[in-house]
């Protein structure tokens, strides 16, 4: 196999646009036989678009695919499967109520005269499972097995067709360490059989444990292809984030220097606070008038940490103290009562109430805290809405405009307004500047600083390192769903953050 030099999969100059977005621009991607190839990139890099175009979910605009040297044009995932490209998605997309055997053979059951040959189905399923070293009762419903076994079943299903190329889209995100090792064993076995495996994952540790090569995408463009063994982690991180280490600004944040100024007692204190699958137990404090940044790659546990603090998910270990008093939140309502506020990363799903007006969106959190008995009058609501529309410069035809008609930046400002109305003590901002234009970004950063000056405690999550460096007094770095370090003072610069993300302790 080693002699055959034609790559298994060759993608040349692939481009794909969606209305308003160039998702992929002239991307090359090559997978060889018997290699595990990690596809890496931050949000919006184009990983999932690449996979979806390759498997025929989306049509491509330009470019060429070659599988085993022959050009291919898959029009649907099923066609791609026929050609030998099988995909296992992040969420196990099998049918839990059906048996394991049915799941493996669904859509391609051996049949005779239109009748399913159940015995053949079971045999075929057993054979497929043998390839992933799994011996289970294939007649049992899939749901009766653990997530790890379901994941392996999905893998077996993907292998059941004569797959040459296997694509694994975040296969490990819901597995524990031991299960990941099981999965990797199977992947290594498949690699030894000469199969090409593409793996998308956010866990750096796992990339280095399993992959032979890495292709990095950023903003829809190819950054480069590297041999894993020859690419230091910090280089990988810098390529994903798009900062060249050598040319990095060594500018210190002004905020960082201020940090020396004594802070009061902490408003929020976390001790060994965590939840399996979300974030490993971690410590954290935030004082009044302090902005603490949470930095890390996509999927490193930033949002998960925010959700735990705000009570969206329940913590399973450790404790949280507010003003020294121990609190346990079972829902965001309780967090809000303590004076917490949270603007989520996913505005559309967790933030805006799309059909309701700007006014209603702004007063919602305050009204929810006050309850039905203390309803704000129409005039009070209007006053609040108009005040914040002016204060934050929300551009809307009027307070009665449905919020879904506003631009992303203005929706973000409406969400900020919703929480500022409640005069929170702790404001958690998850990617407050994501997907909004440069002008609005600067305005929001300015606003955050003025809130800090007024004594608000702020937890600031951003994938943009400059923002974190510019705005935060302290930075907590997360890696692979665990706290990797805490930076203060003049440690807060892009280089140190990046080294911490990559996992080298560079005491500057």
């Amino acid at each position, binding site marked *: 196999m080693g002699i055959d030099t034609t790559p298994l999969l060759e993608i040349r100059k692939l481009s794909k646009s969606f209305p308003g977005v160039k998702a992929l621009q002239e991307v090359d991607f090559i997978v060889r036989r018997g290699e595990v190839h990690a596809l890496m990139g931050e949000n919006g890099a184009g990983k999932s678009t690449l996979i979806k175009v390759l498997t025929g979910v989306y049509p491509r605009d330009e470019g060429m695919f070659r599988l085993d040297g022959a050009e291919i044009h898959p029009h649907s995932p099923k066609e791609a499967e026929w050609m030998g490209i099988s995909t296992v998605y992040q969420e196990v997309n099998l049918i839990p109520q059906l048996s394991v055997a049915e799941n493996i053979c669904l859509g391609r059951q051996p049949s005779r005269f239109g009748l399913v040959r159940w015995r053949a189905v079971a045999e075929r399923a057993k054979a497929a499972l043998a390839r992933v070293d799994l011996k289970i009762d294939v007649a049992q419903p899939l749901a009766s097995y653990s997530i790890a076994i379901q994941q392996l079943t999905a893998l077996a299903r993907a292998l059941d067709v004569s797959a040459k190329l296997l694509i694994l889209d975040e296969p490990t995100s819901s597995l524990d360490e031991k299960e990941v090792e099981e999965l990797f064993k199977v992947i290594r076995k498949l690699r030894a059989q000469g199969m090409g495996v593409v793996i998308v994952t956010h866990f750096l540790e796992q990339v280095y444990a399993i992959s032979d090569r890495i292709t990095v995408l950023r903003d829809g463009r190819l950054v480069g292809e590297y041999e894993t063994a020859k690419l230091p982690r910090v280089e990988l991180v810098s390529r994903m984030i798009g900062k060249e280490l050598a040319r990095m600004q060594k500018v210190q944040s002004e905020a960082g220097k201020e940090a020396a100024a004594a802070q009061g007692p902490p408003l929020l204190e976390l001790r060994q606070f965590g939840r399996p699958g979300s974030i490993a137990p971690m410590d954290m404090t935030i004082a009044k008038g302090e902005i603490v940044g949470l930095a890390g790659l996509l999927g490193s546990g930033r949002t998960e940490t925010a959700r735990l603090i*705000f009570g*969206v998910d329940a913590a399973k270990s450790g404790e949280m103290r507010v003003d020294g008093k121990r609190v346990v939140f079972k*829902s*965001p*309502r309780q967090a*809000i009562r303590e004076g917490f506020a*949270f603007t*989520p990363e996913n505005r559309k*799903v*967790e*933030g*805006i*109430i*799309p*059909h*309701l007006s700007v006014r*209603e969106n702004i*007063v*919602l*959190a305050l*009204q*929810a*805290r*006050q*309850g*039905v*008995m203390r*309803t*704000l009058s*129409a*005039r009070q609501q*209007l006053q609040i809405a*108009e005040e914040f529309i002016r204060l934050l410069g929300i551009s809307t035809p*009027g*307070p*009665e405009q449905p919020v879904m008609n506003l631009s992303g930046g203005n929706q973000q400002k409406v969400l900020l307004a*919703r929480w500022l109305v409640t005069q929170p003590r702790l404001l958690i901002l998850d990617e407050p500047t994501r997907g909004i234009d440069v002008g609005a970004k600067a305005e929001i950063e300015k606003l955050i600083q003025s809130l800090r000056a007024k004594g608000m405690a702020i937890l600031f999550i951003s994938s943009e390192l400059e923002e974190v460096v510019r705005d935060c007094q302290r930075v907590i770095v997360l890696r692979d769903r665990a706290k990797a370090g805490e930076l203060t003072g003049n440690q807060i610069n892009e280089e140190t953050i990046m080294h911490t993300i990559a996992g080298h302790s560079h005491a500057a």
Partner: protein
Amino acid sequence: MQPDRLQERKTRWWFSLVWPVAALVLLLLFNLVFTQGFFHVEVRDGYLYGTLIDILNHGSMVILLSLGMALVIATGGVDLSVGAVMAIAGAVAAQLINMPNVPFALVIAGAIAVAIVCGCWNGLLVTIFKIQPIVATLILMVAGRGVAQLITGGQIITFTHPGLTYLGNGHCLGLPFPIVLALGMLGITVLLTRKTALGLFIESVGDNHIASACSGVDARSIKFLVYLFSGLCAGLAGLVAASNIKCADANHAGLFLELDAILAVVVGGTSLTGGRFYLVGAVVGALFIQTLTTTMYMRNVSADVAPVPKALAIIVVCLMQSPAFRQRLGWSWKRKPA
């Protein structure tokens, strides 16, 4: 010129009524031309009589149901059990009124209380046990009539109590009492939802329940409350229905009225996916459906065939409400001046 913002809000609210009102007016115009005596209203013994009054009178049950239904649908749910709850409430009232020494107020309170318990049952299934509303309320829709049968002992129970017969047959302010009751409930519901924050919470839960919960809205209590309220409305409608015919008929009281109520809400402009709700729209929708039914009777359309033209008319109204359909026709809200 600075537009008055409060005024703007009111204009929007009326906006939603354009299509249901247009449909109703069109139907009335049809009758004005083709159905003789449709608009004839006369005063007899100080009371109003006529076809229009009959429509209001008979429509009042669907109006009552549609008030509760509108709120349930606004949260993204549906309540299929209201017809059965009507039968239960009627059965409870008929049994109690025939017992010696039970004060009239207690009879009414008892029937309403049982209806509210039914609503709470639905609310419990939906909020605590997370059963999809359509399944959760289907349980009571099917089982409810059996419960009513148990209460009546399988008999049709008649009564003659003047108080109880007044509910469905009496007059108040010159109008049949059911009309006054329905309008009164409309007023109370509008006050409760629009003058307090309840309406905001209901709409936000229905529009995006995740974001609502993240903003601190107690989505569970809100949902529970709307099912409770739907039960209350069904109880009132059940009392009117029983009183109308002076007996409790567990098999036929309120039969299929849940479907009319859902239609009324949809015709009134509330989306089945939840979010914005329109109470006055639902009432206009209920009147539209009742007018349609009455028109069929008066034009001697046989009862077997009547559902067909009824369905056609409703399809047209629903299509008019659909933004996708209007876009195809090249119509748009925005072209019209507010």
